[in-house]
């Protein structure tokens, strides 16, 4: 088990407090069972331990750390997908979403069907996603492919569709797990520009990235797990 130190430091020289804390984590710990059962002593992997963190309204917070440091676990905790083993998470009445690209895509179904299904899984209502189908087709640059089964898509086309479906999401707190690297170079630039708009509007964003440089470029504050 590794000792996890939390180093909260400003990414830029001037620290500014952006309004009130909207999500607070107190002494949060998460462990995953590695093996064990009826006749064997259980073994656990401690993904997070005694984590304290406040997320402020309007800030862009970068999360860095090596593989297995618990970055994705942290996002899942904040998104409410998993509950911690110890400690508590207080949400002061804000909506939180983890931006998942291509969640629930079915390869036998057409792009349109997948957009509807994926959108609804992310939390859109059916009417909301249906009203945006044309925009999605246009942004993903899929054209007639939109009516073809997703199994005929290239990897890039799939992620373009996934990104186009997800990009309308504006929860109070948006959680991004390495999503700024989709598609080919041209689309990545377009996707990044669209995502940066979110990072720089008044939305609160948590961004997980392997790239320290990216965190430095876009975040108000970073934490290292």
């Amino acid at each position, binding site marked *: 088990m590794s000792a996890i130190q939390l180093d909260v430091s400003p990414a830029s020289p001037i620290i500014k407090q952006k309004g009130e804390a909207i999500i607070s984590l107190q002494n949060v710990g998460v462990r995953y069972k590695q093996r064990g059962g009826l006749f064997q002593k259980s073994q656990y992997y401690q993904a997070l331990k005694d984590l304290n963190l406040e997320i402020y309204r309007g800030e862009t917070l970068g999360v860095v750390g090596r593989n297995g440091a618990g970055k994705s676990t942290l996002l899942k905790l904040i998104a409410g997908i*998993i509950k911690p083993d110890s400690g508590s998470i207080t949400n002061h009445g804000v*909506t939180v979403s*983890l931006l998942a690209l291509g969640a629930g895509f079915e390869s*036998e179904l057409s792009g349109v069907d997948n957009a509807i299904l994926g959108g609804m899984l*992310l939390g859109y209502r059916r009417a909301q996603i249906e009203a945006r189908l044309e925009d999605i087709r246009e942004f993903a640059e899929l054209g007639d492919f939109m009516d073809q089964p997703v199994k005929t898509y290239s990897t890039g086309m799939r992620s373009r569709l996934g990104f186009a479906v997800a990009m*309308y999401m504006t929860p109070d707190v948006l959680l991004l797990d390495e999503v700024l690297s989709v598609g080919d170079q041209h689309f990545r630039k377009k996707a990044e520009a669209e995502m940066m*708009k979110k990072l*720089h509007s008044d939305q609160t964003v948590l961004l997980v990235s392997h790239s320290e440089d990216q965190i430095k470029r876009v975040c108000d504050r970073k934490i290292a797990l």
Partner: protein
Amino acid sequence: MSQDNISELSQEAALPPSEKVVQWALAAMAQQQWALAAERWAVLRQAYPELPAVWIQAGACCRHLEQWETSQFFLETAVERFPDNPYALLELATLEQARDRPVRAGQLLELARQRFPNQLPVLLKSADHALDQSDDTVALAYNSEARKKYSADVTPWVQYANIAMRQQQWSVALERWSEVRQRFPQHPAGYNRAAEAASQLGDDRKARQLLLAREYGQEWLESFEKPEEDLQILDNKISPPTRRHWLAFIDLVWTKARLNLKSEANQNHLRYLWWIIDPMLYMAVFYLVFGLLLHRGGGGDFIVFLLTGLVPFQWFAKTVQQSSNSIVAGQGLMHQVRISPLFFPLVGVLQNTGKQLPVFALLLGFLTLYGLPPNIYWLAFIPIVLLQFFLMAIASCFVAMLVPFVRDLSNLIPTGIQFILFCSGVFYSPDTIPEQWHSLFFANPMANILYQYRRVLMDHQWPDWSGMGWVLLGCLLAGVLLLWFYKRVEGILPRVVV
């Protein structure tokens, strides 16, 4: 070798074009290696004495090296030799400024303005000088002149913004840099220097935005600045609720089940036709074996008895079997989006129901052909189907929730279903059971439901409503318990199924 000899040489042997060779010296200047640059200019001066740069730039190098006298010599020579070149005078003024002789510098600039009225470098230099003298009004006047006359040139605009920066008027500077970006979107200063101004104002977010805008372009940046466009964006954005509304949840289950059926059908050539072919073959087999070959129990009656039990039971068996592993199979999705685990078994139940409807239609058709035509009692078929649906939903959700915690259970499920098959009276009538076991037999809800199907379809009677009532009550109680349990394990399940 005297200078004259070199000149002769240069006339005799063709020298490379001067534009190329000056790069050699300019490269050293770009690296601020002033001594090296001065040496290179000296060499070039021998070969190209008629080139203004060799004198003026040498003067500049010497100024950086603080060799005032030498610098002055070069520059004065240049002024004399190239009376049409404004840069000689300007460089000389710069030298005087560097030697802290502002008055002399001012006089030289005055001379430059007389000789080269309204030339851009002269106006810019004059503005700079005035700014050094803290004469902001004069500086702005020269700069405004330059911007008016040379509006297509970036330099006066950059100077305009830089004046505000020097005056530490950061918000004014931000506005002026914005104008630079408008006019010259490719010029880096419009972004970099504006970012400096923004961070001086303490607006780090704006500063980062400006730096990023260099990559993403002015249009991208403007999307934040234009309020009307902002409104349009807001209009287009969707804020998802923290928890799905239950109606939205049902719509999602419905959509997923419908699309799963579509996806399943797409995998075959005969597509939806299989939903008819499969049960028809199945019924044909039973007809062949029990109706024709065995010719059991008065022939026709037994095959009807068997099918009215087997068709609903198969629906139950397939649904529970398929749903039992649904939560484990849905782990990928559960880790990506926040969704109640109820979603997975319910989709399975609905999906199987969709496939069951044509089977029921076939069964009713078969009965009609067999001499049991539709009658008023068939109306009760609908509540029985609904009750079975409810029962299967409860059973599927229950099993699906247990399996992730005790994976071994999934091995027991086929056997369990076999057990229920034999306990539910699919192959035999409850009448054949000893009387004292009847209540125990009907405690099995599937046995109860199959009994009701047969009452309606074979015996032309209304179902035993009280028996159905008990099943419904049991399902309701179990349903409440299950909902409570699912709520408790919602945040735990994704970690159990990793």
